[in-house]
């Protein structure tokens, strides 16, 4: 089953053409959305998502929900991309190397448990 708006956004990230929604005041948000959650403006435009974000907090989950049973333990992080933040699973880097402020790029990968798409962060070589 499709989730209009959200699935399109995930597909765009998978294609390396990630975007976010911006209002005239510069607030960022993610689709599906009809008005800015910060100021309620309905003049939302799609703007290119920054290629690199920075981890602002993370956790290594040891007790997963069933939909992540085969992934545990895994690291989930919130990363800042300018005016918008994303939450994703950190891939391609050992837990011991994950740290606050780490530069990551968003991508889409497969959830090993469900076979569904999952937003992931991969480290950026600096």
């Amino acid at each position, binding site marked *: 089953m499709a989730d209009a708006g959200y699935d399109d956004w995930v597909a765009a990230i998978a294609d390396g053409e990630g975007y976010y929604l911006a209002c005239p005041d510069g607030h960022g948000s993610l689709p599906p959305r009809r008005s800015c*959650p910060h100021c309620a403006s309905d003049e939302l435009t799609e703007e290119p998502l920054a290629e690199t974000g920075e981890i602002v907090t993370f*956790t290594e*989950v*040891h*007790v997963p*929900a069933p939909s992540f049973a085969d992934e545990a333990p895994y690291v*989930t992080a*919130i990363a800042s991309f300018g005016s918008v933040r994303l*939450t994703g699973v950190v891939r391609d880097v050992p837990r011991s190397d994950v740290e606050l402020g780490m530069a990551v790029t968003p991508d889409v990968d497969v959830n090993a448990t469900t076979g*569904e798409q999952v937003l992931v962060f991969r480290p950026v070589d600096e």
Partner: protein
Amino acid sequence: MNDVRIAGVGLTKFGRYPERTGRDLFAEAALAARDEAGISRGDYDEVHYGNFMGELAEGQGHQGPVVAEAAGLDCPATRYESACASAGVAFRQAVQTIRGGGADVVLVGGMERMNNLGTSEVTRSLAIAADELFEVRAGVTFPGAYALMARAYFDEFGGDNEDLAHIAVKNHANAMTNEYAQFHREITVEDALESPVVADPLTLYDACPITDGASAVVLVSGDYADENGLDAPVRVAGSGQGGDKAALQDREYLAQTPAATKAAEMAYADAAITPDDVDVAEVHDCFTIAEVLALESLGFYEPGEGIGAAARGETTRDGDRPVNLSGGLKAKGHPVGATGTAQVVEMTKLLRGDHANSDAVPDARVGVTHNAGGTVASAVVHVLEVMN
């Protein structure tokens, strides 16, 4: 505006009852509250009821009428769902209804049945309190979400796992004398620090248990209490509710809970008190870090300073302002949809002087309850006061 008084309270012992139906759990708490209130059946105007995961746990939606019937009442009944703040919201709605003259007698309470599900199903069910598209699909569990907040707190303000461990130790110690608590087991800081990681930096002893149970309160208008000569010495002096963005990623703060700050400010203004007037508090410590965020939102501490409160002995039973004398969610247990009114039950007893831990606060006149939903996208605060 009509005054709101507490005429009766009831609880089940919190614990593991995988075989007991939700309606039976609620009936036990509700009948205890009704018995204490001594109000005839026909005088009940409404039932307000909190429940979070009834569809997932029992395949039962539309629980209002089901539990009203179990409580022996024949009146309009409505379920409120606000994740872990479900019963707190139900309570606030009951208070507003009585204040507005829409009812004189309301049974308000909550119930959650969780242990009939396995650990992974409970984890899945609790996670639906988070944002499904942007958090759950990215692997965020309920403990995981609080772990994200805990790391952000440590990064912004400092503090560490040992500070959190002192909160767990305190709440376990408080639960020892509470016959309704799920755990009667003292723990040490070392026990907490050595317990298995659930979602780092949080360990098993930072987390509340999986709990079944129910709670209920009979609320009456001041007029009804006076006309019927009820013994209802505790009044609801203030009520407040605040909200925030559902997903952590969309919040202005990752290490503060402004929804609870707003709820507290509203409740304090409503009761015409300040944080300094509060003698004792029951706060939503679903995780140890949540107690820290609660203390700061309630204005007991500035942001960043609540983390050491338990370690410094300020919130322990011998401290200036004991917090979670019931044992808190951490040790008393957290039947999600029952918690908000369970806090009111505990606080009412503490203020009446008939709680097992009332001796820790013999002169208490003002108590606060703080009930949070999800990662505090919802928050409800109430001020209870002993009548003169």
